């Protein structure tokens, strides 16, 4: 019986600390009924090619160990920055409806919430005040729709890197997310 509990505890611990992008749930919230963010990701952006998959270790939990700009990145800065990026994720609502009102990260100078409307093939990107998360429902931040826009990246985003984001919800408060950098 004790072993069973230990196994459960181990499973929970692993689940919470895995290398996959996971949510750090607000400390006070319960296991069920709380808002969850999963599968956070962003495309590679910046100077480098996308083929360079090797050698880059993902940064640890919120760590900025890998955040020093490369020489190439520095070069990019005086040309108006590294460009922009977009972060995507799935947000599952908890027991009450909530609203994503802001995102923060030190990876970019400015972070905004945007959406894209497809108007007969004409794509219109617009800032949004917030993104509603229905109670017990799910909202997708995905290419061609809602996204967290990272404006003026401070460093190159390479495949295998992770980007620490803090999402601010109206009710759930701050939720930390590690977005993995990948192509699709």
């Amino acid at each position: 019986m004790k072993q069973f509990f230990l196994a459960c505890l181990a499973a929970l611990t692993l689940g919470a600390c895995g290398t996959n992008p996971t949510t750090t749930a607000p400390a006070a919230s319960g296991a069920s009924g709380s808002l969850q963010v999963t599968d956070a990701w962003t495309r590679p952006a910046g100077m480098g090619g996308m083929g360079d998959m090797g050698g880059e270790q993902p940064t640890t939990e919120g760590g900025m160990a890998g955040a020093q700009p490369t020489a190439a990145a520095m070069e990019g800065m005086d040309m108006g920055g590294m460009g922009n990026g977009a972060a995507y994720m799935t947000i599952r609502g908890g027991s009450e409806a909530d609203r994503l009102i802001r995102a923060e990260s030190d990876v970019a100078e400015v972070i905004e919430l945007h959406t894209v409307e497809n108007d007969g093939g004409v794509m219109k990107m617009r800032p949004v005040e917030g993104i509603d998360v229905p109670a017990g429902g799910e909202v997708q931040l995905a290419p061609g729709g809602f996204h967290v826009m990272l404006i003026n990246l401070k460093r190159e985003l390479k495949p295998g890197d992770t980007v620490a984001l803090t999402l601010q919800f109206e009710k759930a408060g701050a939720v930390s997310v590690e977005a993995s950098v990948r192509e699709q």
Partner: protein
Amino acid sequence: MQLNRVLLALLALSLALSACGSYEFRGGVIEPPSDAPDFTLTNQSGQPFQLSEQRGQVVLLFFGFTNCPDVCPTALAEAAAARRQLGTDGEKLTVALITVDPERDTPERLGRYVRAFDPSFVGLSGTRAELEPIYKAYGVAATRRELPESALAYTIDHSAFLYVIDRDGQWRVAFTPGTPIEDMVSDLRHLIQTGVS
């Protein structure tokens, strides 16, 4: 009456032709194929890029801009994936981004942007006077929209189709945003392997 009969015969003929082992495109077919409107713009190295000089290559054209964080990277990442999946056939594919934001997109900025997807990609810029007729010829809507509440200051509402020009310089297919990569690969491979007539 006579005309109706001719029309029916033509319809039957076209059905028969399409059924007889001819390749069926998965993207939107430009019918009939027409000469792709020619243009000369400046590539990221500052060199002229003339469409009609690309004969022998299949050209995939996309209109976009570097401050576009979602739609354009999605399209270009898909184009890059398609080119990789084409393997050696991919060498016969030229992917070019034509800017709809010439005020901000310098050749250098475009170069950095497209190279992040595939080192072979071409970023094309020019003056407004050079670009406007090209947008018009390709039916590209590109409207500047002020975004006072955004750090971007403005965005460009723009058509996000990918245009495919065959190795003879004929405009053949347009992919809508979100076309599955395997569909793009299938059409591109067909046009690459069909060769120059």
